[in-house]
């Protein structure tokens, strides 16, 4: 366990992408099977089969013979999806998390980028301390962070009672942004570290020409560093988009602190509430729509940013 940390990027730039050339005349079929099969089988069982099963369930409807007959599942084409379309609380929750994401993700990633650039800049002292302090909240699970902030927001328990009595953080108008603050608090440091790692991978020669041209630190950050860490920012953005649409633990905890958080506050809470009614088929249809939306959003984002980079 004393291996030195190897910088992956330095090696990659030297070795290029030609590492994976096929070796002619040599097949290692059994080795490939040994290495890939265990993961492949479990991936099939716990990813592909459930997705297929959710799609199947979402196409069924429950019918009864008369009013008191036994319920029976029959194939109903897109009947559940028609119900999804008509379900106002679901679409309200989708709009809510989209609004949440449009504000929270840029704020969080902007801060993460700012902190990463400051950590990487020569004007800052004590960067090791700051790196650790900013990353510490990531060790706090979402549920715990929400419980903690829930107390901090509460008018009676908060250490900042003057503030919490003047501003009701748990009111219907503000509770969404209070939750956004919890998510930001947990994840800024994590995203900062990803961007910072990418900054560390930039070879210092890159800066020399700019410095000879008289560029200052801010100019170097804007024209060299940010473009070079763009792929890292894209990665953090995609994970944040997925995270936003999955929002569940934090708002679920906030139901204990604020009556403004309904049981259908976010799409995932709607899925959970529908599943517990129970209306399994409709819940499956919600899940499928949600998974598709996540997939399309993150994929579109990836494509747009790639086109810009070209």
């Amino acid at each position: 366990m004393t291996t030195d940390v190897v910088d992956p990027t330095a090696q990659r730039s030297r070795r290029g992408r030609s590492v994976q050339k096929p070796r002619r005349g040599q097949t290692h079929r059994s080795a490939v099977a040994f290495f890939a099969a265990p993961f492949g089988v479990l991936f099939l069982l716990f990813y592909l089969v459930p997705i297929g099963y959710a799609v199947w369930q979402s196409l069924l409807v429950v019918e009864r013979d008369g009013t008191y007959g036994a319920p029976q599942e029959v194939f109903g084409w897109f009947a559940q999806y028609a119900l999804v379309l008509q379900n106002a609380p679901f679409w309200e929750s989708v709009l809510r998390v989209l609004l949440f994401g449009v504000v929270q993700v840029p704020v969080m990633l902007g801060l993460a980028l700012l902190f990463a650039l400051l950590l990487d800049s020569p004007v800052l002292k004590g960067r090791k301390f700051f790196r650790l302090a900013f990353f510490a909240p990531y060790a706090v699970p979402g549920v715990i962070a929400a419980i903690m902030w829930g107390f901090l927001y509460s008018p009676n328990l908060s250490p900042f009672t003057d503030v919490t009595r003047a501003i009701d953080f748990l009111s219907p108008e503000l509770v969404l942004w209070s939750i956004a603050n919890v998510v930001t608090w947990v994840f800024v440091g994590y995203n900062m570290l990803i961007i910072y790692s990418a900054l560390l991978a930039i070879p210092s020669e890159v800066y020399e020409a700019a410095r000879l041209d008289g560029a200052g630190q801010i100019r170097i950050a804007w024209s060299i560093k940010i473009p070079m860490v763009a792929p890292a920012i894209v990665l953090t953005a995609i994970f944040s988009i997925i995270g936003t649409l999955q929002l569940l633990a934090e708002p679920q905890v906030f139901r204990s602190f604020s009556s403004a958080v309904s049981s259908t506050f976010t799409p995932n809470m709607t899925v959970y509430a529908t599943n517990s009614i129970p209306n399994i088929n409709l819940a499956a249809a919600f899940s499928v729509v949600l998974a598709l939306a996540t997939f399309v959003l993150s994929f579109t984002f990836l494509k747009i940013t790639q086109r810009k980079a070209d």
Partner: protein
Amino acid sequence: MSFLTRTKGATADDLVTGKGPKEGILSRGAALLIMCVFTLYFLVPIWWLFIASTKDRGQLLTTPSLWFADFNLFNNIKDLLDYNDGIYVRWLGNSLLYAGVGAVLATILASMCGYALAKYSFRGRELLFNVVLGGVLVPATALALPLFLLFSQVNLTNTIWAVLLPSIVSPFGVYLSRIYAASSVPDELIEAARLDGAGEVRTFFTVSIRLMVPALVTVFLFQFVTIWNNFFLPLIMLRSQELFPVTYGLYTWNTQLNQIPELRTYVLVGSLLSIIPLIIAFLLLQRFWRGGLGAGSVK
């Protein structure tokens, strides 16, 4: 703490000597001010949690929130551990089991698959990789519900397996392992091992895997945190509180605060204790995993 002492070899620091007069005391001060203000933002809530955990129920509301009153932390911990036949210890153990075992198995499986994708050329390789990559984008919560339906058909809901089994699949781990294996395990080394007569499997477990340590640690930590923080899966799968992970257990206590107010101290102290294992894991493993962290983002 070796993580703290690592500095990069060549940074913008080297250029300090050439900086212009504009970047003097002013920008130094501004940078420091920004970082200090946000340090408060990040650390004050944790500090508050620690202070609150040291107080008894009466003093929680009557004494200043950000400083000590009578130091009752150890009494509080003892009460927490005794409450309800020590259910809290059970929860903590469950979390360690789910996250520890799950992450170890996930890391082994993902690194093997990533290595195969990076180092062997076989039919369907790109297809497999693209399907796995698509798996990274599938929200885990979208899987939880169909998994629940499938598990209920084989009577596995409300068992350890319902949480553990889905946790050992990490598509992101495969993605990271592939990128890392491609860049850090030289083909020449594998060829040399072959010439020495080592089999493929032996080469992987004795040679290649050592070069992949930073990636392995990253995958392990990433998966450990994911499982530790997972909320939807336990919420939907588990009914018996003996099986709850600690986060879900604390959540259920938090929902009962209105009926049972004395739970408040337990929620606070329990939250504080539950953070410690993750902090220890990060501190112990940081020097390894930071090396692997950038690997996924640069491509």
